[in-house]
């Protein structure tokens, strides 16, 4: 059964693609409506919830203090964890983090880290002794497709509204975590032979490879990832990159609209 359903679905998706249609009536580059809420979790120092169609994710940001790496004595650190827990879909099994969840956490982490949006030096408490460690946890509650974009959007929104709990750690007054930019991820999946933006659950089940693109404020690339089996041509990448520029700008505007 596991193999049969995707085969029938693939056929249906190919027919839809031939007419430039999608299962939920969207056009090829149209995303689902994105609902974003920030600062919603009582015990997290930064938090956000994103709903995109049947996908629901929560992201929490926590802080603690740590000893800096000896080669970077004044630099704070960032860690991103993702858990694809069995709550999110019947396909997820309990157990240690799966390769899929590790990939999710690392791809979201790279986009944020490599954009340079966080000033790691501003997270120094005592040089060589103590720095802030920022921990982002991606928590998928319902996987209805494209959890990458949902998690990346929630992660940057949670960071941009986070407060460093200095008082609780007895190292001064609480302060807003400073972010210099807003890296945003856009993901594309090959469905019925051509790329679409923001694949839903059926499109992921019956689709092929996916490409994740993180763009910074200036439209520069900060992370790329091709996941799953499949290949693509440079022309195809150019096409989705152009679309990513438009979609990322829209998402960035949404994220900024939630900031006080």
């Amino acid at each position, binding site marked *: 059964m596991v193999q049969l359903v995707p085969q029938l679905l693939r056929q249906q998706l190919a027919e839809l693609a031939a007419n430039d249609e999608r299962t939920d009536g969207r056009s090829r580059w149209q995303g689902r409506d994105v609902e974003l809420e920030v600062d919603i979790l009582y015990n997290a120092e930064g938090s956000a919830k994103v709903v995109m169609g049947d996908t*629901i994710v929560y992201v929490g940001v926590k802080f603690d203090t740590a000893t800096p790496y000896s080669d970077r004595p004044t630099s704070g650190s960032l860690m991103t964890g993702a858990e694809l827990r069995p*709550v999110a879909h019947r396909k997820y099994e309990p157990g*240690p983090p799966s390769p899929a969840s590790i990939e999710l956490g690392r791809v979201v982490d790279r986009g944020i880290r490599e954009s340079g949006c966080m000033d790691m030096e501003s997270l120094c408490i005592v040089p060589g002794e103590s720095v802030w460690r920022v921990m982002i946890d991606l928590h998928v509650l319902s996987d209805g497709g494209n959890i990458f974009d949902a998690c990346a959007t929630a992660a940057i929104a949670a960071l941009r509204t986070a407060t460093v709990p200095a008082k609780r750690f007895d190292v001064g007054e609480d302060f807003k975590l400073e972010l210099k930019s807003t890296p945003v991820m856009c993901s594309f999946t090959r469905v019925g032979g051509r790329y679409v933006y923001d694949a839903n659950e059926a499109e992921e089940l019956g689709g092929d490879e996916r490409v994740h693109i993180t763009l910074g404020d200036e439209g520069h690339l900060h992370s790329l990832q091709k996941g799953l089996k499949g290949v693509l041509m440079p022309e195809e990448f150019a096409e989705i990159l152009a679309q990513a520029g438009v979609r990322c700008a829209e998402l960035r505007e949404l994220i900024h609209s939630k900031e006080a």
Partner: protein
Amino acid sequence: MMGGYGDIKLLNDDGTRLDGRAVDEMRSVEIKAGVLPVADGSAWVKHGLNVAVAAVYGPMEAHPRKIQRQDRAVIDVRYNMAPFSTSDRIRPGFNRRSREISKVTAEALESVVLVERYPRSKIRVEIEILAAEAGTRCVGITAASVALADAGIPMRDMIVGVASGKIEGVVVLDLDKAEDNYGQADLPMGILPNTGEMAFLQMDGDLSIEEYNLACEYNYKAASEIHELMKQALLDSASRGDA
């Protein structure tokens, strides 16, 4: 865990608690059913500052086969606290506490779900605590019950998770974080509101028989209040036509 902090003041001079509640007053509770689109049943419960989400998948074939029971379904419960749910981040994954809570919650649910209707199958119940501020096992049980009902799984009754305890020698309903940390007793119960039975029972601390009786009375009163909210959440979800 209980007691040992006798110098912490938890009651105001007028007999109210630090957050202004009366001794027999519950924190505010909000319940929604059918909140997770891909699950077969789901619920969201906010109880004071606690937030729990429960998802139900199944009944489905029980895997691995050794967990199958020829005459009934098994209920596979996972209670999990999100890493960001507490003041200090929790390392992801199971620990002894979450394993024990998962076990007793599963046993409580197995006593109300008509498991004999689904031989050789498994019903998965996933409880995720998104914000924890004392009493999460009870909130999890309430959420799991609503999620099972939302999934259309036949049950004798739902279970309402409630707790009372003792602070500064006074029995109070529904301990908050400070009261849980510095109080003298905690009595969480899973109550079947229609039959009055208990499907879940734990206690720690120090309670006299009289104090236990009063705490129990508070719990039953709170359970009937929460039960109304559970029913309303299911009616609202059914009338929306989703889930």
